[in-house]
Structures are given as structure tokens and as C-alpha cells.
């Protein structure tokens, strides 16, 4: 897993509340046995027209947005299905950070397995980011848990110690679980 330290990027704004995982990656693209190739289907129903051509109005299709790594979304991002294809698709497209006022639980857990940093901010700070110039750059520092718009005060965001460790050190969570083998065996004997 790619580790996360700091990042400078301009924002892509997708200011819709309750973006569910069916929008992030529609179910018809889940018929795959690997994790690759999902970036092209990210937000497919919004990103492409009926005839398969790109919808020029959609943020991800605008030339100025290419290469940007931070998505500013509306509230309750990632609700709905448990499909991990959602963070796979977001990461494959190039996103490293999603900013919202809240995230759905399963999406949060899946994002952490894939090195995708979720930055939860207050409504006030969200508003500040929403009205920021579309070419404004943000600086995100995991070690200080801060996000900063140029010329603004840094915004602190919450992240628990374990999630921070996973992202900063690329901690292998399955490896961590396996280190409890003896405890697991003891638990099973006691059942």
C-alpha cells in the first residue's frame, strides 16, 4: 500500500451530498476478478453521455482538472453498498484524498485499506473550501493532521492513531491481524 505523508494539489469539486457507491462505480462494472482498470468507470453514469462520449460539464472531464488528486465532495460520501471497487476506482483515477463533512462507515474502512486519506471537516471549513478559487492549492500534512489553503489558517482534521499509522507507514493490516494468532487460537479453544 502506498504510504501517505504530505500532498499538494488543487481541488476537484463535486458538491453533491450523499454520493453513493452506485454512483462512484455502477454495479455493471463489478464483474471483474481483479482491482485494475476501474478508473475509467469512475462516476461512469455522470461522466459519460448516452452514446459513450464524455460529458463535458462533468468536473472530471475538464482539462484543467487532470492530475488533481483531491476530491471535495458533499456530505455523507460513499454511502450504500460495501463494494471496495469504489476506493479502487477512485485511487485508479488518481485521487489520494477525499474531503467531506462525513463519510459512510464501510467506505471509510475500505478507503483505509487502499491508502486513500479521508479528511473530515466541519460545515464551516467545508464552506471555506467550497468557495475557494477553483485553482487554489491545498497542502495536506498527515503528521500534523492538517489541511491548508494557501493564505489561510491550517484546518485540523480528526484521524485515529491506528488509521494514521496505516496510512503513514503503509501498515499491513492483515499482517497485523496475523500477529494475534495465539490469541485467536486461545479464543477458539474457549468457545
Amino acid at each position: 500500500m502506498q504510504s501517505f505523508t504530505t500532498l499538494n494539489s488543487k481541488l476537484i469539486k463535486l458538491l453533491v451530498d450523499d454520493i453513493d457507491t452506485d454512483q462512484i462505480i455502477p454495479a455493471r462494472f463489478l464483474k471483474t476478478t481483479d482491482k485494475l482498470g476501474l478508473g475509467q468507470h469512475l462516476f461512469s453514469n455522470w461522466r459519460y453521455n448516452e452514446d459513450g462520449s464524455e460529458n463535458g460539464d462533468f468536473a472530471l472531464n475538464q482539462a484543467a482538472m487532470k492530475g488533481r488528486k483531491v476530491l471535495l465532495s458533499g456530505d455523507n460520501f460513499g454511502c450504500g453498498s460495501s463494494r471496495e471497487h469504489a476506493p479502487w476506482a477512485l485511487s485508479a483515477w488518481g485521487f489520494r484524498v477525499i474531503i467531506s463533512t462525513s463519510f459512510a462507515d464501510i467506505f471509510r474502512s475500505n478507503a483505509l485499506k487502499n491508502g486513500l486519506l479521508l479528511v473530515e471537516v466541519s460545515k464551516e471549513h467545508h464552506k471555506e473550501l467550497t468557495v475557494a478559487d477553483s485553482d487554489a492549492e491545498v497542502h495536506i500534512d498527515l503528521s500534523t493532521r492538517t489541511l491548508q489553503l494557501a493564505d489561510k489558517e491550517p484546518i485540523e482534521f480528526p484521524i485515529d492513531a491506528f488509521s494514521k499509522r496505516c496510512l503513514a507507514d503503509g501498515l499491513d493490516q492483515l499482517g497485523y491481524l496475523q500477529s494475534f494468532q495465539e490469541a485467536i487460537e486461545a479464543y477458539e479453544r474457549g468457545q
Partner: protein
Amino acid sequence: MNDASTPQTLFEKVWAAHVVAQEPDCPSVLYIDLHLIHEVTSPQAFAELATRGLKVRRPDRTVATMDHLTPTLPKKLAVLDESAKNLLDTLERNCEEHGIELFPWGSGSEGIVHVIGPELGATQPGKTIVCGDSHTATHGAFGALAFGIGTSEVGHVLATQCLLQERPKTLEVVLTGTPGPGVGAKDIILGLCAQIGIGGATGHVIEYRGEAIAALSMDERMTICNMSIEVGARAGMIAPDETTFAYLKGRPMAPKGGEWTAAVETWKELCTDAGATFDRTVHLDVSALEPMLTFGTNPGMGIGVSQSIPNPKDASSSSDVDALTKALHYMGLEASRPLVGQPIDVVFVGSCTNSRMQDLRDAASVMKGRKVAEGTRVLVVPGSAAIKREAEAEGLDHIFQDAGAEWREPGCSMCIAMNGDALEAGQYAVSTSNRNFEGRQGKGSRTFLASPLTAAAAAVTGQITDVRTLLGTDK
């Protein structure tokens, strides 16, 4: 950790009984009793095990089924395409290689994962149950702690039978009153979705309590717990009682003989103690509910059948104005108009929410002796092979077919529209499934979520209809 004298909630009891280890500043290592897997969210997990040279730790605690991609046309000939076939073959191969019990097509025990778990008696009170599917909360109807996980976590459970979990908060949903005619479990949960919104329970495990819950059958309790995820909850639970025990007794994987008696004694302890506290409480008086329908593009956008479609002008915040405007535009609906009379192209009765015997009986009670309206297509998809057999033994298949509905083989079908059963762009459906997200039932699909009764009313009238006008009247 609580000592024995501290009052505990149902959730706290099940949680505490499954914590294997807990390091400071780390999530708990939580033991998983039952792992359900299906073809869509497991292949990458098995691939991860293969890369690491790991085995499945407890194949005996893993149960597999094929549901998302299952064709529902009779004779099972039409697997949608090569990629679907590849996923089904991959599951079969992985189960074979790791010694996991799979209930494939034709086994007689196949069906939707959240229907067959309870049906087999694999779902039991007090268990921790996970599946790579967000509707795993269904199993909480039995007093299990059951929740959906991602594919990486499917790999974690396959390899270690454990998960890393932050302890969620608790939310008590107290349901009081007696539902009126035409109002059932689906209306109750859609009522809750409308009341607290689709993010209303994020970070929480719900316990549904109160007289209105105690009165429900297991099929109805499963409908309610199933949609806990639609308010963002991690899980939904109901304390087991005599209704639960009666359902489980004699099921193939339920304890037998002396073990049954002992199990029931243990299960009776699984209730929230007097004096135990929840982080939050929500009340809902079910006697005030009408038959519910969604009008928008998430399950929280629901209204009673006699109400008008909300007007964005009346919304309380600018983000709500935007959300409503966007939803009504997608749905092609006009604000402030009634939903009743809206023409319907397709009716879908099925899904892990509403494909059990009581659901089919409800739908049949309205369709019996009536005909599907001209121009409306009706699919009835039982949740499992066992339900299909039972429904046919009761003659429900004839009621549906005589009315002009399609009686299908079991599977997820049009709820997620991955198997070829899908709406065409722009079509309107009344669906007993759980999600009305944009494109959920096929690209461009427009979904009204409702109960089996309300779905059947739409089937025979070709439009959204208050089912209460059809109950107890001559056909």
C-alpha cells in the same frame, strides 16, 4: 470492559463476547463466527490469500452462495456474459480449493445470501456474522451482530477469522403502536429512513425495540434490519425471543436435542438489561404511518402514499434544495403533486429485503383474481430455492402467473441489475428492494421503493395506488 453487574445493551454483550485482543490506540480484534461469501466481492480476497500463500482458516465457518449474477429465467441457461461466468466459475474453484461449502444452482438450498443464512439455521442469536455485502445487517433480526465488509476484510476473515473493528456507538430505535391496514415492516423502515435520513445512523449499531417490534414475524424483522444500512448504520439488531426460537428450531444448521435446549437458555440472556444506556434514542409511532413510497434517489426520500411530492422551495437548507431539485429532475417528477396515479412500467417483487414467504403472500393477496395492468411488466423473484418450493406448494406461483406476472428462479435479480434483469433508461418501477439510487436498477432507471402490498397494487393498476383501496374489496 464491563463487569457482570453493569447493565449492558444487547450489542455490548455480543461485542464483548467476541473481542479476542485489544491493544492501546488500536481497533479491537473481533472474532467472526460466520462468514458468508458470494461471487462478486470475494475473488480479489482469495487472490490476496494466494499471493501470500495463506489458507482459509475456518472453512467450516464459511458458507458460499451465488446470487448477484444468477440468471432468474427458468432452466438457468442464460448467464449474462463471459465476465459473469468467470466470476461464478472463480467462486466454485475457490470453494473447492479451500473446502468451503457452496450452495450452487440446483442444490435446492441456493438463494440470496441473506435469505439462505437464516433459512439454513446458520444465522443464530449472539453470533458475529459478516459478508462482503452491505445488507448483511439482515441477520441482526436474530440478535446477531451482522455487518457488511469490503473485499480486503473478506480476505482478513478468510485468513484469520477476525476483523479489526472500532467499537461503534449505539442507537436505540423505539417502535410503538400498531400499524394500520396496508402498513407493514417495509413501511416502518422506510418511515425511519424518511425520519432520520440516509446518514442518520452513521457510526452506530441500531437496536430496534418496543411493542411494535415484538409483534413482528421473523420475515418482517429481517426486512427492518436489512435496511439498517440505508440510514448508514453499521448494523441493526433485535433481541431474540420466542418468535426467533420457533423460527430456528429444526433448521438444518441449528443446534439439536440437548444442545438446542442449552442454546435457547443462552440466547435468552441476549437482551438489553434494564438500566443499560444507548448513545442515542429515536422514537417512531408506527400507528401514524401510511403505506410508504420513495419519490427520490435515496431511501431517505420517502413519503406516505397520500402525501404530495415535497417542493424544493420548502426545503430547510440550500443543500436540501439542491438534493431535492436534482432528485426530482432525475425522476422526471413534479414537486407538490401526488404520487398516486404515477404510471408504472415495471414492478419488482424480490431482493434480500422482501423476497420471503410473507412478502410473497402479501403480494399474492392483492394479485389474486386480478390481472396485471396492460403495459406493466411484473417480476416476482423468490429469495431462495426453498422459498420457491414453499410458495409453489401454496399455489402462489399460479396466482402470480394467472395474473400475468413472471415467476422467476431465485436471486438478487433486479435489485442490483447485474444478471440481465434490469430496467431500461427512463422506465419507472415500483420495487420491493432496498435502494432507489440513480441507475441502481439499470442505467437511467427510476425506482419507487415500497412494500410488497404496494408493489402488487401498482402491478394490477399500472400506476402508484394506495393499496388500502384494494384491501378487502371485491375484485
